[in-house]
């Protein structure tokens, strides 16, 4: 009986101490983790697209809701004017979803760029979509329209050789971004004004 009590006591104490310690550490690291996630997951892509902005787009972000999706939108200021936004969309690639950050200049309705954020594509094949800038650079300056496709499907984007599936995924993501942009443009304009100030 004595042993039984001891077992229960030890287990309970151990569990509660563990739970307490973990809760404390969790609390202590929570904000740092969120900052890191933005910094490292979205950060490089945002920086790649919104080069030379006078503000920090990650700090100047806001959220918009369309239907039941909520998106973080990052805003960049050029020459003191907040006119460029970026947000993320995804398409289905070879190994899973390919996340693409798409930047759009709201004055000209042209893409300022696209960059892959997260993916699980094969290194040396699909992963080149992220590593090799020459593929995504094709989107730069493209006007916002209904769809973007690879040349094989009749479009104008040259697929990465050996990774057509990944290339298609990126095109799908950009297409989704463009259509979302067209839908929520008015809302965006309202929000962006706030940042501008």
């Amino acid at each position, binding site marked *: 009986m004595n042993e039984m009590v001891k077992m229960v006591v030890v287990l309970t104490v151990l569990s509660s101490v*563990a*739970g307490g310690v*973990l*809760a404390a550490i*969790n609390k202590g690291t929570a904000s740092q983790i969120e900052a890191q996630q933005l910094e490292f997951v979205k950060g490089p892509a945002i920086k790649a697209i919104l080069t030379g902005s006078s503000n920090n787009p990650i700090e100047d972000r806001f959220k918009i809701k369309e239907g039941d999706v909520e998106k973080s939108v990052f805003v960049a200021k050029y020459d003191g004017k907040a006119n460029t936004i970026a947000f993320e969309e995804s398409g289905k690639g*070879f190994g899973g979803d390919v996340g693409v950050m798409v930047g759009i200049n709201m004055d000209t309705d042209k893409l300022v760029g696209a960059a892959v954020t997260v993916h699980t594509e094969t290194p040396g094949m699909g992963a080149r979509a992220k590593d090799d800038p020459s593929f995504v650079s094709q989107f730069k300056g493209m006007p916002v329209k209904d769809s973007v496709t690879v040349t094989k499907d009749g479009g104008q984007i040259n697929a990465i050789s050996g990774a057509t*599936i990944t290339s298609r995924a990126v095109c799908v993501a950009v297409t989704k971004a463009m259509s979302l942009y067209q839908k929520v443009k008015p809302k965006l304009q309202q929000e962006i004004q706030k940042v501008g100030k």
Partner: protein
Amino acid sequence: MGYFELIIACVFVNNILLAQFLGNCPFLGTSKKMETAVGMAMAVIFVLVLAGTITWLVYTYILVKFGLVYLRTIAFIVVIASLVQFVEMFLKKSIPALYAGLGIFLPLITTNCAVMGVCVLNIDKEFTFLQALVASLFYAVGFGLALILFAGLRERIFLARVPKPLQDTSIALITAGMISLAFFAFQGMV
């Protein structure tokens, strides 16, 4: 993704052992003989279906609800360990025949990356309950399939004139690599 694709993906394309590298210790440890391989395969299928679904429920209805997501690892391992204990006791008492077959493999499963790994993957991939159930079952089937095919080859290799420094684990790993290469056949089929 439909269920058919999910099944093909779990068994072949994203095979838990050969593509995701989970569960290698039991893979190498129980593949020397066909009988043990079959026993281990059955035990993993049995436990993984239970563990995959229960951890999904625990995660969705307890951890997420109470904001305890950071306790995922600890919660899952406790669930798996107690599940294995429970299954062991249950089988011993009520289905001794099955216990005689699977018994020795059950404790091994507690420290099997494949079981824990699938539970985590079910969450990471944001599966629904039904998807998690199907994925758990077929990841386990994929594990069993790889294990049994491997055992078939290993029984032959055991009798071959393998140079001494390569014998046993070393040649087994190299063979596993070749099996993993063969499984590339299924790439892109989902």
